[in-house]
């Protein structure tokens, strides 16, 4: 059985990105379950400290490619380093973040290796798969679980015949956890100067404008989220008022973002951020599976909806049947009175 490999992304400050630490935590579980090593690859410039910071997350081997041409990230140099590494190491499983970097790199590598790649997984498990036609059984296979098509279904994808099995996962979906602060691993240098070629320089970065992140709802303890049922951008203002009163942040469904009710950074769900607040107040949200995938781990859920049968009500601790535009002002009043 071959190993589990995580492609690690770097932040602007040259540290390992949260998404990659989350993948290492999941990768550690998978590697332990399979009885194999957890490996990581870090490609960048002056990344020794970043590479070593991976050991507490249970990484056994870190492959390090250190070269000025690898920072900031560009597709071709990273593709060349990581593609070659996977070809040589033949890992069983490779995980990438479903970030702008991972979604740029992973498909190109999957095409090069002619292997499968499942995007935006919400769960990864090891299991058995039996081919319905041939009856052939595949043990210790990666179950790549993701909500699919239209919102009412969850699909389990397998790649029984080809290796590696590759998947991308969005930031915040998996938990980041230190495995063992004293865990020791190896650093294995890759000869980047020998691998990279002039052809890898076909795309040049002319300039970069890094924005301070304006909105970050990922770690908000309270979230007031609105769906398409809020009706308009103006009505969304009430959610901002409500959130400000109770010390929360405003989130939204994809439908609400697509309708222009609020900024894309507030989108919660499979293709947005995943949140685990202590309180989630869903206003005018029906509860498509993609949205629930991003919030169903919330400690308490309140749903405010005119439809008593909205799917989200099934996972809500409290359902208030009514129009959010009426209920929220009443809720705000009740809250103010009880604070006195």
């Amino acid at each position, binding site marked *: 059985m071959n190993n589990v490999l995580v492609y690690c992304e770097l932040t602007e400050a040259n540290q390992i990105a949260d998404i990659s630490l989350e993948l290492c935590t999941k990768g550690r579980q998978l590697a332990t379950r399979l009885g194999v090593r957890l490996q990581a690859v870090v490609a960048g410039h002056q990344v020794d400290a970043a590479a070593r910071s991976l050991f507490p997350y249970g990484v056994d081997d870190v492959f390090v490619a250190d070269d000025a041409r690898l920072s900031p990230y560009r597709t071709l140099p990273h593709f060349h380093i990581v593609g070659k590494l996977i070809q040589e190491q033949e890992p069983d499983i490779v995980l990438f973040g479903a970030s702008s970097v991972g979604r740029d790199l992973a498909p190109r590598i999957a095409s090069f290796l002619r292997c499968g790649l499942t995007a935006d997984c919400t769960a990864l498990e090891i299991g058995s798969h039996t081919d319905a036609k041939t009856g052939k059984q595949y043990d210790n296979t990666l179950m790549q679980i993701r909500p699919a098509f239209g919102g009412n279904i969850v699909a389990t*994808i397998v790649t029984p015949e080809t290796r590696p099995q590759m998947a991308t996962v969005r930031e915040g979906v998996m938990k980041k956890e230190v495995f063992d602060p004293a865990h020791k691993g190896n650093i294995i240098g890759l000869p980047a100067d020998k691998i990279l070629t002039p052809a890898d320089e076909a795309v040049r970065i002319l300039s970069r404008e890094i924005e301070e992140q304006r909105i970050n709802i990922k770690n908000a303890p309270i979230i007031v989220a609105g769906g398409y049922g809020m009706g308009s951008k103006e009505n969304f203002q009430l959610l901002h008022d409500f959130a400000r009163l109770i010390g929360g942040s405003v989130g939204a469904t994809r439908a609400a973002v697509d309708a222009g009710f609020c900024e894309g950074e507030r989108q919660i769900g499979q293709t947005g951020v995943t949140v685990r607040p202590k309180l989630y107040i869903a206003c005018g949200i029906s509860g498509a599976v993609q949205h629930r995938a991003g919030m169903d781990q919330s400690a308490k859920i309140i749903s405010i909806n005119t439809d*008593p049968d909205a799917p989200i009500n099934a996972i809500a601790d409290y359902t208030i049947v009514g129009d959010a535009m009426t209920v929220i002002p009443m809720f705000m009043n009740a809250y103010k009175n009880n604070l006195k």
Partner: protein
Amino acid sequence: MKIVVLAKQVPDTHNVTADAMNADGTVNRAALPTVFNPEDLQALEMALTVKDQMPGSTVTVITMGPPRAAEIVKDARFRGADDGFVLSDMRFAGADTLATSYAISQAVASLGSVDLIFCGRQAIDGDTAQVGPQVAEKLELPQITYAEELVAVSDKAITIRRRLEHGTEQVQAQLPALVTVTSAAPECRYPHAHRLLRYAKEEVPVRTADDISVDIERLGMKGSPTKVKKIENVVLAHKESVTLDATAEALDELSRGLIEEHIL
């Protein structure tokens, strides 16, 4: 300059029901209303903008799908594309992104040398964003993903502003290259009345696996490493749930409870 746009006709995911899926986990496309994948339309606009700036360029639209996908090639013609075809063959059916990108890259290769390929970042029915980079790899082209703005183009290079996680960057690629376009890019121009009149009756050519040079083993379900093992209609784990009427008393009690539990 020879420009290709890769486009997909997709089910309108705003109007999807549970019976949109077949028992084997593939999509029952026949049952659904369809649209021109939105980001592919924006890719078409970027291609037409390049053509505006580089007179003498041609824009060819390629789509893979059932014969009815010809509708979007026609739509692209009305908006300014020079030609296009549908890649349609039962042997393509059930393809995952790897088998899809193989068929499409062979179709592009059948056109001879191409300077620029544009496609949407992702299609709204799958959201995988994989086919663009995979076509680029198969054609050994540099890729620029997440393009928001065409900054400059010449017969040697293209400059694009692309989206990063927390910001943007301007990159310049030598041609030929492939560009994937996001929803932040300019919307596509409308169909021209005179083009509507001129091309309304024109047949859109259909090409099959026999028209492009392909290894049949790498097509369709056979050429797809990913398999759908299981599809579940989501049955929610029922929590102990309390339904409240929207009265001042109920909300008073609820908010008091949340404050006492230190949740609010």
